[in-house]
């Protein structure tokens, strides 16, 4: 006679093995979620501290200079990122529609624990170019300012 807690009982073994598998799956999922959330928090904190003030300032200045700007902050996203889209205003004789240029500061994509600056144009994300990246320990205002300056210079064709 076997009882439900008898480890030699075949049904008990089957149910225990299944339970273990489900628990392991859940544990892996929770650990992954923790890892993702911790990475997001760290990235959001770095972006908040170093990227946001300067990017907001540049967005304001571009707008004041008459360019169309769309500024987006996605600190709650996975991975967290900040985007600055610029539609440079041409001269009065320039009849063509301004093309869009976008700079994105993105944390942890494609490599973890690193801030990336990536840019792309109205041609689409397929044409995205990595402008530069920096490990977490080296992120500072200077690096962010350099990325913004380089982007604005190219967007306004000032180089």
């Amino acid at each position, binding site marked *: 006679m076997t009882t439900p807690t008898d480890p030699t009982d*075949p*049904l*008990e073994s*089957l*149910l225990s*093995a*299944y339970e273990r598998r*489900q628990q392991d*799956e*859940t544990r892996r999922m929770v650990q992954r979620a923790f890892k993702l959330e911790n990475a997001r928090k760290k990235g959001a904190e770095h972006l908040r501290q170093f990227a946001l003030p300067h990017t907001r300032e540049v967005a304001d200045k571009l707008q004041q200079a008459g360019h169309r700007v769309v500024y987006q902050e996605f600190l709650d996203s996975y991975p967290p990122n900040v985007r600055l889209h610029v539609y440079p205003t041409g001269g009065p004789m320039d009849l063509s529609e301004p093309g869009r240029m976008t700079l994105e500061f993105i944390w942890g994509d494609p490599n973890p624990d690193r801030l990336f600056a990536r840019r792309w144009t109205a041609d689409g994300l397929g044409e995205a170019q990595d402008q530069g990246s920096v490990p977490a320990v080296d992120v500072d205002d200077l690096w962010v300012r350099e990325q913004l300056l380089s982007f604005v210079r190219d967007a306004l064709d000032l180089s």
Partner: protein
Amino acid sequence: MAVPRLKEMAQRLVLARHDAVVEDLLDASRPRVQLTVRPWRAPFTPHEASDGRLELGIEDEGEERISLRFWLGAHSEVPTGQESIPTAKLDGAWLEGRVLGFLGQLLDRA
């Protein structure tokens, strides 16, 4: 013999958080007993596990043979497994072995 054994196994499945129901349809036009199981799945898993059904039926009017069929997946019409034995060969060990085989396959897919 089969109904109490299936009910006992269903009860143990329920204690392990699975949905398990035994239906005694021996008085129906096609006499049979059904065990339907929906495996429990851990929270946050992307999809629910699909049902499995095991059916033990009296095959002919002379009641000489017992058929066992099971289906994995709620909407499958073709049985995943089936066999037929003489009624005299139906015993607890045979039944338990078949139910365990069915549950093993069902839980592997869940």
